[in-house]
């Protein structure tokens, strides 16, 4: 049966950030829509509802020798199972545990043909606890990685901190991930339009991103930290060189590169070439045509750990005509 792909929203956030509150609101509010919710087995969702499915975050490594090619096999199974129901869904929400790496969830939607045929990854939404975020950064990589992967960030519990504290947290979030849309919230209260159906992984909508954070640069004193780097170029990109460079880069540095996006002006091509990736997995396509007289500027963004700005800059410049 031909049917539209169901959008899937991934909901991450450190323990206690407010994910469960948000899910409870989505499930109990009168919005006239039907959402299936896939929760982790240790979750505490108070709602007993046949739209809620328990999952167990079963991650497996693809048998291809790549250590970052990890996939949530349970999601593949559950999505196939949900598609057997007569009832159709307006969306699917996947909640991860507070300590989960969002990589495997996202990569699942790049990997399985049937999941791709029936659903589309819409966005990764991360709930951040404004009061405890800075402390959580000290406790491990999880809180930082969840922000790095995000397309939408809810900076939650803003009522528990002062405005200067909030500003510090916001600056920290922006240093990790300047691309995500950030909303300040209390008790996870937000219009559903702000988090659902965002099309963050839609190659046709990737044009909307504007890397206006070039000034952040790279700080070698903190190279263990997660940062984002962006590059622009006015000279056209030579496709063979770019493919070779990007292929080698992701092969070598895939585990450290969480998200990447790009809009490229390919030498001699009338249309934009757009791509985006999660670790080593990538999607690409031709985008909208360049208009007459429009500046053909290529843009490239990486969010990851231990990014070597000089090296990436040189690598990209070698791809230009």
């Amino acid at each position, binding site marked *: *049966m*031909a049917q539209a792909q169901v959008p899937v929203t991934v909901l991450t956030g450190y323990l206690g950030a407010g994910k469960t509150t948000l899910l409870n609101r989505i499930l109990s509010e009168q919005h006239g829509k039907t959402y299936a919710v896939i929760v982790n087995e240790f979750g505490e969702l108070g709602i007993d509802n*046949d739209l809620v*499915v*328990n999952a*167990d975050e*079963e991650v*497996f*490594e*693809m*048998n*291809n020798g790549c250590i970052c090619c990890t*996939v949530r*096999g*349970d999601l*593949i*199974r559950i999505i196939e*199972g949900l*598609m*057997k*129901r*007569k*009832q159709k869904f307006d969306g699917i929400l996947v909640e991860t545990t507070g300590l989960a790496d969002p990589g495997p969830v996202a990569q699942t939607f790049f*990997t*399985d*043909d*049937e999941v791709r045929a029936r659903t589309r990854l819409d966005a990764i939404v991360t709930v951040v606890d404004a009061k405890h975020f800075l402390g959580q950064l000290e406790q491990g990589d999880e809180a930082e990685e969840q922000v790095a992967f995000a397309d939408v960030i809810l900076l939650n519990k803003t009522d528990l901190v002062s405005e200067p504290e909030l500003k510090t947290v916001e600056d920290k979030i922006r240093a990790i991930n300047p691309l995500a849309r950030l909303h300040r919230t209390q008790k996870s209260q937000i219009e559903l339009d702000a988090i659902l159906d965002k099309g963050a992984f839609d190659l046709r909508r990737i044009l909307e991103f504007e890397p206006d954070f070039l000034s952040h640069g790279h700080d070698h004193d903190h190279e263990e930290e997660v940062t984002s780097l962006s590059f622009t170029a006015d000279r056209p990109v030579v496709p063979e060189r770019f493919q070779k460079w990007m292929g080698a880069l992701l092969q070598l540095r895939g585990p450290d590169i969480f998200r990447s996006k790009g809009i490229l002006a390919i030498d001699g091509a009338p249309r934009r070439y757009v791509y985006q990736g999660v670790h080593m997995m990538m999607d690409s396509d031709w985008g909208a045509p360049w208009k007459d007289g429009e500046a053909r500027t290529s843009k490239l963004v990486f969010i990851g750990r231990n990014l070597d700005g000089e090296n990436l800059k040189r690598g990209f410049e070698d791809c230009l005509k």
Partner: protein
Amino acid sequence: MKLDLANPAWRQALPPSRSVNSEAPVAACAFNRDGTLAAYALGDGAVRLLPAEVDAAAPDAQPPVHSGAVLCLIGDPAGDGFISGGDDGRLLRVNTDGTAAELLNQKGRWIEHLAQHRASSAIAASAAKNAYVVKAGEVRELGPHQSTVADLDFSKDGSRIACAHYGGVTVWSLGQDTLPPRRFAWAGSHVALRWSTDGKFIATATQENDIHVWRIAQATDMRMQGYPAKVKSLSWTADARFLYTSAQPVFTAWPFAGKGPEGKPPLQFGDEGAGLISVVAAHPTAEYVAGGYDSGELQLGDIKTRRSVVLKMADGSAITCLTWSPDGQKLAAGNDRGDMLVIDLRR
């Protein structure tokens, strides 16, 4: 029984059939033990029972017996009805009058796969990381496995059961429960499993579009690659000489007679169908095979003459299930738009 696929009658007209639409996707279908009824597992919680004779009138739909989707269904080896499992976590015995009795309740989990051993009237069901064997009213829990059980099957003599999961297969001994389970390891996610009809091999399909087969006695294994899509359906011939696999446009059979398939290409035969085979089912006793395509086409093949004939034309709705009647004279099939079919092959 004999099906002469060279008979021009196959190409002049499609065989007699009946199709009833349920408006809910069909996840599984089965015939009952004596072959008088066909049943269909539906996405609205109903197990729909229809007479196996194609010219018999279809009775009205019965109310749903599960509260979510029915995910799996087999004929009851111990009675005239069926056994069904659903995403409501219930395993049910569905009687011929449509009433149901609960055998197991695993609320919050899905009952996703079923297996049976006819001679000993045993059935097995998977629910999350566990398998449950139900025999003579007793339930035995096997597990937990390292990940959710993705498929399961009994050995030929019913003394063991194999469960597929991440990292390989676990084989449990059912007769002596003091015997530790045996592991057959291969990295990755195994998504389908069939024990060979002679008991010597266990075949799995993996997430990475290939097939893995273990020779049980020698504990050696082999891997078959080159599929363009995930193989979701495996079927051994009655004589265990061939393993049929889905995910190809023609019937594809790996030869297991003699030295086995190592170094040999699979036998491929029949007319290329529309799309890829989504479900394949070897005949229960003879050399025939049925294949359902993701385009909705159905074909019948004969491995001896390497011929195939079309049983149903493509219609854009993927065949999701396909099974032979116990006497091998009829086929039941279902698709993702809710069509419930029976095809009579006697001509």
